[in-house]
C-alpha cells in the first residue's frame, strides 16, 4: 500500500533549496550589490554573529517572549474556547466583542501595550498573546461544537460525570482542531515577536535586524533574517512532531469520525488484525484539516 521512504525522496527535498542558494551564491559573488552581499560574506558574518555570540543576547530573549506569549494564548484560548463551545448562550453573548477584538491587528495595539506594560518584555508578551489567541480560541470553539453527539450520548447513558466528560471526551475530541489552531498561531506568533521588538526594544531578533539595517550593516541584517527563518522552520518541525505523537489516534481514526457513517471494511469476524500501519506514517501526513480560523461549523450540535 505505502512504500517506505526512499533515499531519493529524501534527497529530493534538498534540490530546490540547494539550487536557490547556489544560484544566489554565484550571482552575488559577481554582482557587487550593496543590499545583496555575497553569500560567502553572509555565511561568515552568520558564523561570527550567531555561533554563538548573540544567541544569549538576542535569540534567547526573543524565543522566551514567544514561548511566554504563545503559552498564554494556548491556555486562554483553550479554556475560553471550551466554555464558549459548550454554551450557546455564552457564544452569542460574547460574539460581538470577540469579533471586534479579533479584527484588531495586534501591531496596532503596540502603543497601547507600551502604555499598559511599559517597555520591557511584558508588553511584547502581551502583543504576542493577543495576536495568537484568536486562531486557537476559534478553532477550539469549532472543535467543541463539532463533537460527535453519540459520544456525548454514550457518556450520558453511562452516567459519566461532566468533569470527566470534559477531560476525557471533549478535550481529546476537540484536540485535532485545537492543534490546527495552534499551528496557525505559531506562525503568527513569530511574526508578532519580530514586530514587537522593532519598537521600544533593547534586544531581540527584531531589534537586531532593525539596528543592523539602520547602521547599514547589511550582511548582519541578512543573518538576522536567516535566523528568524530557521527559527520558524525548527519550531514548526517540532510542533509537527509533537502533534503526530499526541494525535496519533486521529490519523488512524480518520475513517471513523467525521464525514462518513460508511460501512467499515467487510471482513470476517475471524480475522486477526485491522489496518496496523496507521501508526507508521510520518509527520508529513496531514493531521487535522488546516481550517482557517474563520471557519464556522454549521453542524446541528449546539
Amino acid at each position, binding site marked *: 500500500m505505502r512504500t517506505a521512504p526512499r533515499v531519493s525522496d529524501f534527497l529530493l527535498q534538498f534540490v*530546490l533549496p540547494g*539550487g*536557490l542558494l547556489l*544560484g*544566489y551564491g554565484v*550571482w552575488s559573488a559577481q*554582482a*557587487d*550589490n*550593496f*543590499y*545583496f552581499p555575497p553569500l560567502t560574506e553572509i555565511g561568515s558574518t552568520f558564523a561570527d554573529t550567531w555561533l554563538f555570540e548573540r544567541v544569549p543576547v538576542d535569540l534567547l530573549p526573543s524565543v522566551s517572549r514567544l514561548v511566554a506569549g504563545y503559552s498564554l494564548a494556548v491556555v486562554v484560548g483553550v479554556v475560553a474556547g471550551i466554555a464558549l463551545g459548550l454554551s450557546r448562550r455564552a457564544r452569542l453573548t460574547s460574539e460581538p466583542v470577540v469579533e471586534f477584538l479579533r479584527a484588531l491587528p495586534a501591531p496596532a495595539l503596540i*502603543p497601547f501595550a*507600551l*502604555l499598559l506594560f*511599559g*517597555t520591557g518584555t511584558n508588553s511584547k508578551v502581551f502583543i504576542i498573546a493577543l495576536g495568537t489567541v484568536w486562531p486557537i480560541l476559534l478553532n477550539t470553539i469549532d472543535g467543541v461544537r463539532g463533537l460527535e453527539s453519540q459520544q456525548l450520548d454514550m457518556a450520558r447513558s453511562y452516567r459519566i460525570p461532566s468533569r470527566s466528560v470534559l477531560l476525557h471526551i471533549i478535550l481529546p475530541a476537540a484536540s485535532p482542531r485545537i492543534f490546527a489552531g495552534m499551528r496557525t498561531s505559531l506562525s503568527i506568533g513569530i511574526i508578532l515577536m519580530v514586530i514587537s521588538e522593532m*519598537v*521600544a*526594544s*533593547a534586544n531581540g531578533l527584531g531589534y537586531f535586524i532593525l*539596528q543592523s*539595517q*539602520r*547602521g*547599514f*550593516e547589511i550582511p548582519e541584517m541578512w543573518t538576522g533574517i536567516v535566523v528568524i527563518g530557521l527559527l520558524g522552520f525548527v519550531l514548526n518541525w517540532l510542533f509537527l512532531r509533537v502533534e503526530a505523537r499526541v494525535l496519533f489516534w486521529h490519523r488512524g481514526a480518520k475513517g471513523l469520525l467525521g464525514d462518513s457513517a460508511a460501512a467499515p471494511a467487510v471482513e470476517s469476524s475471524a480475522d486477526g488484525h485491522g489496518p496496523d500501519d496507521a501508526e507508521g506514517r510520518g509527520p508529513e501526513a496531514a493531521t487535522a484539516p488546516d481550517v482557517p480560523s474563520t471557519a464556522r461549523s454549521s453542524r446541528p450540535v449546539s
Partner: protein
Amino acid sequence: MKSSTYACTALTATAVLLLSACGGSEGGGLSDAPDSGNTPAAAGGGECGGDGLTALTMAETPGGPLSFVAYGVQQGNFEEEGIDLTVTPSPGGGTTSVPALLQGEYDVMGLDLVSAITSIEAGLPLKMVSGGSSTSDEPEGDFSGVLVKPDSPIQSREDLEGVRMGVNALGNVNELAINDIIEENGSAEGAISPVELPFPEIVAAIGRGDVDAGILIEPFVTIAENQGLRVVDRPWVGIKPGLQIGTMIMTEEKIDECPEVADNFAAAVQATADDIREDPEAFRAALPALIDLDPALAEEINLIQWRGASDMESIELTGQLMAEYGLIDEEIDYEDAVIN
C-alpha cells in the same frame, strides 16, 4: 507519474523566475548604492543650471530642523541663490530615509551627524554640503535635556548610573551622550540602558516610572518641564559646547551633476543662519506658523543654534567618539566627506 512531472516543471519554473528576479534588480532602486555610475538622473530633482531656478526637493527632520529650512525659504534666501526649494518632513528618522535620497526621491536631506557619518562609513556615496543644528555654547541654552520625574532621586549627571534612559533613537548622538556620561562618571559599561521611544512617549514614560530618565529636545523639554519634570543635565553641551548635531547631505552623483547648486545651497543656509542670529525674535515669532507649534511654547523654548557651514571640529570629534564607542569600525576621511 504525470502529476510529479508537472510538479517538477512547476518547481523549476519558479526557481528560474526567482533567480532572474534577483539578477534583474540591477537597474532598479536597491542596487543604486555603491555603483553610482549606472543609475539614470535622479527622478525627484530638476534640471540644474539653466535660466530659471533649479528645483530641489529636501527632506528634513520634523520640528526644529525643519523650521530652519522653512524659514530660509520664507525669507527668500534660497530663491536668491537660484534654488526653488521644496522641503518636507523626513519619512523616517536617522538612517532610515537615506535610501530614499540614494534613489533620487530627494535631492538634499537633513539628518543627524551620527547617522550621516554611519552612512558614509558604510560606503554610501554621500557628502555633507552644509551644517545643520548645533547646541549652544552654554548649558542653559541647550535645546536638549535629560529629564527626570519631580520626585526622582537623580539630581545631576553623576546620579545617572544604573538607570533606564529613554531616547528617541538608538545609535545616534544620544549614544555618544550616554557614553560620555558613563565615562565621566567612571561607571561600568552598560550603566545606562537606553530604551528607544518616540519623544512624546518618553515624556509619558518618565512620568510613569517606566524609565528613570529621558533625553529630550525642544519643544519636548519645555513641555516636560511644564508637566513638572526636572532637567538634570544638558547632555549635548556636555560632549562639547557648540557641538554640531545635524547636517545636510547630498549624493555624490547630484553634486557631480550640478556642482554649483551645492555651493549655492550652502550659501543660502549660511544666510538663513545669519538671519536667525541677528534677529532671533523674528524667527521665534515665525515658528508657530512654520511648524505648527503652540505660540506659548514658542516663547518659552530654547532655540536651536545654526552656524551655517559644517564645523570640522565637531565632525571630527563626533567621528572619533563614534569609533571609540564602537558605532563605526573606522573613522572616515573628513576632508573628503565635507564639501561645505
